[in-house]
């Protein structure tokens, strides 16, 4: 049994309910024990840091201090939301890198009877935990309904592989952890070039036109590759791309209908969970059409642009970087459309 201290974050109870529901299904099947941080509070997202530094870090550190008190056989604190993960990791890292910050934050925590020693916890993201701890082989062994014929654009977003203070990811720009994870579920994974580009973050709230452009880039690129759906690992990405896709369409006069789902939803499906329990139906751009492909041998769509001919000059070797766990990824080729 893999044990983790679990920090859900606000979205998991609201906009990302599909994530929470599918995660609980997946965790059960993979024998993961998740102990929720007691009385956790919001991490402040990207907002509190803009207002006032010490309160912002103190807000995050309250969670760290409580979680550190819950250490029991594991000091791994896992967060499924990218922004929460980054904030927790950042506070832990900066409190050590800049001792003056650590001291002030602890001075504030003391007012609530708490204290946090940076480095006491290992902060992990859910994808990292699944790929590096549970392992692709184990995940593959639990697949009972392979996602054969489903064309997926894997979208990791920004805050998981960057800035990556603890070097947990194979690359900052082009990590393949999520690609590989989707691949073992049996899906056809496109080599999505924007896999770590920005979804617009809070721009959808404060500067919608900026956000619409960022949303358009991602959705149109996935559409160009004829993806059936995009998978995300972050409630904010899912929210922007799903809930604001319609607005972006209106703004640009486009008609994209790209379903955006959490990667755990597809894992749950592949593990044999029914669509409703996997959180489907909550997305605003319906994934119905895409799901219809699963289990049905549909012919693979034609690539969007011509593949490179085998003649010509040889390519330099594309050496894949290793996962943090040192594990090699599966040897099988990932479907590439160019």
């Amino acid at each position, binding site marked *: 049994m893999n044990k983790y201290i679990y920090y859900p974050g606000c979205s998991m109870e609201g906009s990302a309910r599909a994530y929470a529901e599918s995660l609980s299904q997946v965790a059960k099947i993979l024998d993961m024990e998740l102990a929720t941080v007691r009385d956790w509070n919001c991490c402040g997202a990207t907002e509190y840091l803009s207002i006032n530094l010490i309160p912002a870090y103190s807000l995050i550190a309250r969670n760290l201090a409580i979680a550190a008190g819950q250490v029991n056989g594991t000091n791994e604190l896992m967060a499924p939301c990218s922004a929460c993960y980054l904030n927790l990791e950042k506070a832990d890292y900066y409190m050590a890198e800049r001792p003056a910050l650590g001291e002030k934050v602890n001075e504030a925590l003391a007012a609530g009877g708490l204290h946090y020693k940076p480095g006491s916890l290992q902060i992990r993201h859910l994808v990292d935990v699944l790929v590096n701890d549970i392992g692709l082989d184990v995940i593959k062994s639990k697949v009972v309904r392979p996602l054969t014929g489903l064309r997926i654009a894997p979208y990791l977003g920004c805050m998981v592989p960057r800035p990556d203070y603890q070097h947990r990811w194979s*690359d*900052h*720009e*082009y990590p393949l952890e999520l690609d590989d994870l989707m691949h073992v579920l049996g899906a056809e994974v496109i080599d999505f*070039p*924007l896999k770590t580009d920005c979804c617009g973050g809070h721009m959808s709230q404060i500067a919608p036109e900026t956000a619409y452009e960022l949303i358009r*880039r991602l959705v149109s*690129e996935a559409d*160009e590759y004829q993806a059936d759906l995009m998978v995300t690992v972050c409630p904010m990405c899912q929210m922007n791309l799903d809930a604001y896709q319609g607005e972006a369409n209106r703004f640009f006069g486009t008609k994209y209908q790209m379903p955006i789902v959490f990667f755990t939803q597809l894992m749950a499906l592949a593990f044999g969970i029914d669509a409703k329990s996997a959180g489907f139906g909550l997305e605003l751009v319906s994934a119905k059409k895409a799901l219809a492909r699963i289990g049905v041998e549909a012919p693979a769509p034609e690539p969007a*642009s011509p593949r*490179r*001919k085998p*003649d*010509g*000059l*040889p*390519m*330099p*070797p*594309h*050496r894949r970087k290793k996962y943090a766990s040192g594990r090699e990824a599966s040897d099988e080729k990932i479907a590439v459309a*160019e």
Partner: protein
Amino acid sequence: MIENHKPKIGVYVCHCGSNIAGTVNVDDVRKWAQEKLGPEGVVIARDYKFMCSSLGQELIEKDIKELGLERVVVAACSPHLHEKTFRTAAEKAGLNPYLTELVSIREQVSWVHTDKAIATEKAKSLVSGTVQRIAYNTPLEKQKVPINANTLVVGGGIAGIQAALEIANAGFHVYLVEREPSIGGHMAQFDKTFPTLDCSACILTPRMVEAGTHPNITLMTWSEVTNVSGFVGNFDVRILKKARYVNEDVCTGCGICTEKCPKKVIDTHYEAGLGYRKVVYTPFAQAVPRFPVIDRPNCTFFQKGTCKACEKFCPTNAIDFKQEDEFINITVGNIILATGYDLFDAGRVTNYGYGRLPNVFSSIEFERLSNSAGPTGGEITLRDGKTKPETVGIIHCVGSRDKNFNNYCSSICCMQSLKFAHIVRERTGADVYEFYIDMRTPMKAYDEFYQRVLDEGTLFVRGKVAEVTNAARYPHEKGKLIIHVEDTLVGKQRRIPVDMVILSNGMEPRHDAKQTGQTFGISCSSDGWYIERHPKLDPVSTMTEGIYIAGCATGPKDIPASVAQGAAAAARVLDKILQKEVEMEPIRASVIEENCSGCRICNSMCPFNAIAFIGDLKVSRVNPALCQGCGTCVAACPAGAITGTGFSNEQIFAQIDGLLMTV
């Protein structure tokens, strides 16, 4: 020190202009030494603005003669700089040079402290330590050993070739060892050389031929040095000569074997992965020597036991599948390391897409692409081998000047990129963009070349490229590579669609530089380049006597600088050879045999193989001709039975007492 006799000691404190006097109260140190160290034997203490000047030296000489000084302590700079100066001065006045010692109060005090009071106190402690210690110094005599006139040059690139030719032309023998099948190095892969655009092969191959045919040069390609022992004047070197599976005595280099070999593999070395070669091959047409090698891991005969096409067709029966690796031992007096550099792996900069986006090329790939002997016959095409690019982007500083990769400037990339721009314009007429952070063109005729490339209409953009992507955002970008950059002179972000991207990847130390350094007893900087004895004044020497370094082994350099260093290292070697013998520092270890338990720990620890076990007596003994005085055995001996001249236990303890004296 003779029992109950305190030798007369003179202490001289140097101001070094303001280098020392700016941080250390020199006057105070002198007064203190005169008063407090009197009981320790100090009879005179002086300070002077520049002790190393001839007036400063004369001061010491005069005191030795007039006051009868028996020991001299100079508190000044590091012994690396002026120990020799002061020892020579003392010797002139009749004092054995080993009775003079330097205390470093510049490198170890004034340059590393800011608080004057603390620095002054530390200077006093250091002076006190040496005063205590020097009383136990004994007069030593230098030993002279003859120098073997043969030289080993490691690395057959342009720097190594130059060094070998200089020495060979002076009439001395050189072993030139190269691990590839041919000499020539990186320069053999290039098309043109900046800033004059001479054809690289045209200027290089005459030198290669000269080195290959010179009566004073023994060329050993497909060979590697595996072990070095001994010291300046007499190094014993063991060389692994890898099996070529071709008998060099009968091979004529006709090339029929290569022609008949049925198997092709991607040539990751000479053609930078862009072309193919046969399994029995010479890397390129002008290779020196002309004998091919068989690439065993890829050879069908070695893998499956059948084929032997090369053997069947060889007109002189030169193919020898039974050949084995052999070791060759040589003795040389001096060694020059010209081991070169590795190209930075551009695939590490993931955001530039090398290895993922087909039309992103590395600098060496472009060299091969533009070379008329290369895979496209000099046609500049996209990865499809056919299409000519209409727009090309050249990116500077790939892996250089970047704390994520290498923090240093690779120094050649600006000029290399300008050269690429010129070649692309000339051969394809394409629009060329150059993306640079700073344009660095400082050497002779370099900036003029920059002007020329400007004049040719190359579009310069000042900005480090953020990303190269194939994700089109707008219709005109479809099918192109898009370069994301901030044009910092405009202050705006730009997206520039191009057909081809050329990365100007920087230079890195050889992947095995550290290991090679250990073999030869020299060290690498934190960046991994070999460290010079002095970066400005002795750039081709190392801290190990008799081992010299030249070319890119010490850091990124262009061809003229590498050639100059090769020649400079050769001059240093010739200087040594012509001296016929070398003076050895008389710092030696010796075993106090009655204390030796015969455990032999020191035997294996000695880096110079200078300690032998005398079976009859069951003790170890140091061979003074081999011992370099490194002190490893002294520290390692569990019985404390080994002592080093200049570093005896009583000297060390006296120095510690002196250091701990209240100042």
